């Protein structure tokens, strides 16, 4: 009997919690604003299927690498094109979600 009640509370709390969390330090490649240069923080390899994880490594995804989102379809669902090093790579959102990034400080104006 308690289960639905608890669920409702979680449902209300979790988006706020997530938003606060993201705003702080763990933006992912999925949510990184377009054309904002950033650095790859950590990659949750465990969330990825093993061929995907390997291909991601082979394409040079690693901690400390410069990254930038170039294109993302507005309606959601479509893949993301990002620049990593001097290369452009397309990947799906589920993968982008596993890559946390920290935006570089904006140049002072």
């Amino acid at each position, binding site marked *: 009997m308690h289960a639905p009640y608890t669920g409702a509370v979680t449902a209300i709390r979790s988006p706020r919690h997530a938003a606060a969390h993201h705003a702080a330090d763990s933006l992912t490649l999925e949510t990184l604003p377009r054309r904002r240069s950033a650095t790859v923080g950590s990659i949750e390899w465990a969330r990825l*299927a093993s*061929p*995907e994880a*390997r*291909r*991601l*490594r*082979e*394409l*040079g995804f*690693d901690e400390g*690498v410069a990254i930038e989102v*170039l*294109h993302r*379809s*507005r*309606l959601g*669902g*479509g*893949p993301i*094109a990002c*620049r990593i*090093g*001097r*290369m*452009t*790579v*397309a*990947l*799906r959102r*589920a*993968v982008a979600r596993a890559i946390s990034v920290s935006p570089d400080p904006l140049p002072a104006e």
Partner: protein
Amino acid sequence: MELPPLVAMVGNPNAGKSALFNALTGARQKVGNYPGVTVERHSGRLALDDGRPVELVDLPGAYSLDPASPDERVTRDVVTGAQAGERLPDALLVVIDASNLDNHLRFAMQLIALGLPVVVALNMVDLAERDGLVLDPAVLERELGVPVVPTVAVRRRGIDLLRGQLTALVGGSPAAVGLRRLRASDGSVDDDIVTLQRRARAIAAAATVSETPVRRWNHMLDSVALHPLFGPVLLVALLFVMFQAVFSWSEAPIGWIEGAFAAAEAWLKGVLPDGFLRSLLTDGVIAGVGAVVVFLPQILILFLFILVLEASGYMVRAAFLMDRLMAQVGLSGRAFIPLLSSFACAVPGIMATRTIEDEKDRLTTILIAPLMTCSARLPVYTIIIGAFIPARQVLPFVGLQGLVLFALYLLGIVGAFVAALLLRRTVTKGESSGFMMEMPKYQMPRLRDVGLGLWSRTEIFLKRAGTTIALTTVVLWALLSFPQAPAGQKQVEYSIGGRIASGLEVIVRPIGFNHDIALALIPTMAAREIAVAAIGTAYAIDDTEDASGAKSLVDHLRGRWSLPTALAFLMWFVFAPQCISTIAVTRRETNGWRWPLFMIGYLFAAAYVMAGITYWLAVAAGL
């Protein structure tokens, strides 16, 4: 005779390997197959500075020595000497993209660690320079311990230097070998990709003299090509232009080919007495082969577009745009490239599915590839559309005939999507494999590379027309010519072929097909374009009884077929799996008969049902 030394070209995809291969070997190339796999083996001859010949083999592009696809497996097996039917190379020519050192150096380091003599081609240095990237090859040479030659394959820059290094390498010049040995025993090379990658980045940073941010014009092109709204519009427009061009650009060359065949026929009729041999040559060989060769211009225009889209880098953008749509039927954007190639021919299309890593994804793509309207259907579509659809303009620059052709292509695509949706829920059930792809820089396609690609397609097509198709039409001619019909009987119905067709006619009568079509369907099992040749041959034989003499194929069709029959015939060809080569390549790629048989079954069922529906709807509509 002793074999010449073997040099293998290896590198990442998009390193410009093929252009360098073309620059080194020119037209002296051979395309074969590795035994047991359908991976193409591209090889060519190259004369060294001292005149000795070297065999150069261009291996499939790979990201590492840990293969993810059959293509990459061949690359690994050749460089490690494990590939059946290939010797261990005497040296490796490692090709890296100068503007993507971070990534390409890592694979180069793995290859150097194998211990074979290596020369590195630092390719596309012009693009890197334009990109604001100044590199110091001497630093790379020192860090890698192998000779590094800056090249611009498409402008033939650095080719002589590269050949000089290869001469030293396979000749065992002490200087070159010494340089290599210095570093080969370094021991610091680790197999772990991340570690190697970090070392590659450090070397790249050391070799970079100066650098400006990545070129913006590439991104500017992408902001149009990948735009959520303009991107898809551009893609559809490109495809539409491509299919209109297939029709409008080919008119003149088709006229020349028809003229040549007509002249050959007239000449033969002049020099040969009326009889068996003359009938065999004119009605069998010339009518049959001519009916097919005439479509070479259209097929080449289609391949031209596909080669240019691929070489320019646009193809991967198209895959990016299509990923969302493909995901909805359980496929990935990656499937778009093999499917688009299948518009030219399903055989290279099915072979191109090897880049799809997930087995179920790959199988689904193979099964729906024959639904893409291949160039072999063009002869059939063209002749029927030409005979039955009026050449009217419906909009400025848009003809009704072109529109009908576009609709047929669209129908194939819709059919493929419906099939994929059903297959992914039944026989190829499973998780989708996702989509991850490097997007190469945009590049101006090189006339020479596109030309070589077109030439090899022409060769394959003419070889087919000269062998399979010629033989099939001659057999058909024989079946239709014997036994001779007595006076008052129709030759096409009295002959052996005619009697077989009469049996088949019972089955296809309900979907509106007549005796001629039943007859054409038999040899058409070998290849679709034979349908035209078969009908051409049948009417040519029948023509001899006709007092009026030579009537064109189109006139014959108009006189004998109703519009509903013609439409049903078009619909049949959208679905029917009539191509021995496709079935054979499916068997090879899926390791057995199970999937090709499944493919034949479901496609014939679809063809029969759809042709039937079309016929009866058209009849009901009073067409």
